[in-house]
């Protein structure tokens, strides 16, 4: 594993407001880190500090071994960055815009031509290359921003809400593109769309109120849910109450709740244990016929809510 991004005790204060307050994590080659958190949690601010747009109040950022404070140009050269809202020069065409980016990125001649063509193809904008960017739809503008970010095949890719405002097909294309590139890059993607956690990321960092609340795999994130490994069961011809009483008498069961459909119950295991097999055997050995049974993975939205709202918060 090659460390590409190292962030230590990073903080940004705007007056009294601590937008980012002591964030530490690192990203290696091959990792796609989904940066989660509610709006205003400090995701964008953190990304702006990594890319050298904002100067940190304290802490260090190193990208590919370069310190953003002492060698910002090398850091910026190593990063492909899609800022929030994918800003671009509206009166340019994607062709002129990408050529400008290629120039500044130090690409020349045939190399430049190839880079522009390849980025345009990957971002699927080849057929709008000669229309002013301001006349393009939101989805295409976003893709132009994406093409700009991947143009120089950077070792590090940082994207602030790359799928925001795209339709489901466009989202799918962007996710596919990111998955294709994941292998040899270190990627940070901010999002508040939880389904993307599974679609793109192999690691998640969840940030709330400027602090990291979780750092682990999407699976570990789900495991924090109280629905993790919960089993939903319905049994033919048996009252829900009787079923609940029986199940709750078992060792590994922490509790149950009725499902509001199917005449079944949801069974919460103790300590998030995997109890499906044992449970089904016990129910069957009781002479009951199982009509349906399935295990829940855990609910990301519930974990998200739990981790990002403190007890007593209005939200």
């Amino acid at each position: 594993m090659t460390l590409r991004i190292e962030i230590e005790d990073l903080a940004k204060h705007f007056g009294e407001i601590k937008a980012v307050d002591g964030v530490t994590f690192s990203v290696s080659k091959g990792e796609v880190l989904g940066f989660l958190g509610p709006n205003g949690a400090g995701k964008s601010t953190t990304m702006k500090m990594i890319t050298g747009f904002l100067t940190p109040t304290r802490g260090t950022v190193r990208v590919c071994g370069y310190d953003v404070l002492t060698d910002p140009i090398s850091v910026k050269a190593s990063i492909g960055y899609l800022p929030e809202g994918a800003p671009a020069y509206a009166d340019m065409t994607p062709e002129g815009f990408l050529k400008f980016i290629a120039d500044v990125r130090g690409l020349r001649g045939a190399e430049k031509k190839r880079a522009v063509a390849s980025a345009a193809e990957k971002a699927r904008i080849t057929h709008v290359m000669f229309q002013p960017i301001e006349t393009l739809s939101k989805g295409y503008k976003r893709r132009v921003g994406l093409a700009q970010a991947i143009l120089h095949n950077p070792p590090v890719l940082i994207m602030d809400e790359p799928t925001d405002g795209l339709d489901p097909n466009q989202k799918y294309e962007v996710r596919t593109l990111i998955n294709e590139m994941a292998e040899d890059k270190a990627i940070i993607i901010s999002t508040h769309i939880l389904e993307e956690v599974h679609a793109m990321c192999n690691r998640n960092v969840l940030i709330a109120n400027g602090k990291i609340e979780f750092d682990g795999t999407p699976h570990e994130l789900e495991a924090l849910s109280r629905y993790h490994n919960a089993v939903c069961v319905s049994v033919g011809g048996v009252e829900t109450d009787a079923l609940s009483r029986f199940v709750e008498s078992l060792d590994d069961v922490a509790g149950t709740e009725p499902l509001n459909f199917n005449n079944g119950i949801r069974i919460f295991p103790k300590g998030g244990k995997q109890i499906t097999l044992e449970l089904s055997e016990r129910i069957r050995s009781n002479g009951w016929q199982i009509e349906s049974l399935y295990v829940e993975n855990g609910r990301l939205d519930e974990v998200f809510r739990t981790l990002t709202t403190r007890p007593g918060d209005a939200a």
Partner: protein
Amino acid sequence: MNMHNIWFIMKREFNGYFATPVAYVFIVIFLLLAGFSTFFVGNFFDRGEADLYPFFSMHPWLYILLIPAISMRLWAEERKSGSIELLMTLPVSVFEAVIGKFLAAWAFTGLALLLNFPLWITVNYLGSPDNGVIFASFLGSLLMAGGFLAIGACISATTKNQVIAFVVSVVVSLIFVLAGYGIVLDFFSSWAPRVLVDVISSFSFLTHYDAISKGVIDMRDMLYFASLIAIWLFANALIVNARKAD
């Protein structure tokens, strides 16, 4: 300082003027006003002299109004559209960006100035002017335009609003020009010490441009405009650095 980066930023910015009708409208109006002021205010024909003094002497007043129209978009637009975040996260230093944008605006102004060449042809047709003087005046006017542009670029970096950038630039430019104007100096000389009056007048564009517009190139005048440009551009870079993310 990477010269390539300055060149690429300048090229993009320069082409940007022509991506919209702004460039053409500006050039037409500049030529109309320059022509009008030469013939009607400067009395080009009545003077009966084969030179372009009436043309060049009106430039400070034209520039007060027209140069801020060129400089107002340089940074205000980047900040408004958010593209400044893109620009400042490319491997480009703030100084490269500031200089590149300034040079683009300056080159555009130079182009507009050059397009007054029919006047030069006219005066050469009508008589035999000292073309050395005209060339010196041209350079001087261009240098002064650079001063106006540097002021405007710096002010453009302080706001996201191009109209504000324009109005404030006009006022500041006016102050720099009027500081050497007779009425203003008379106002000060009636009560202020001689030294202060000299300082105020020495900061004026008029004082330094007057000799140049007659074709006299004095190193001190050149140095004045060069250092004025340098100082305002330096301030421009500091402001961009401090306020880019606001």
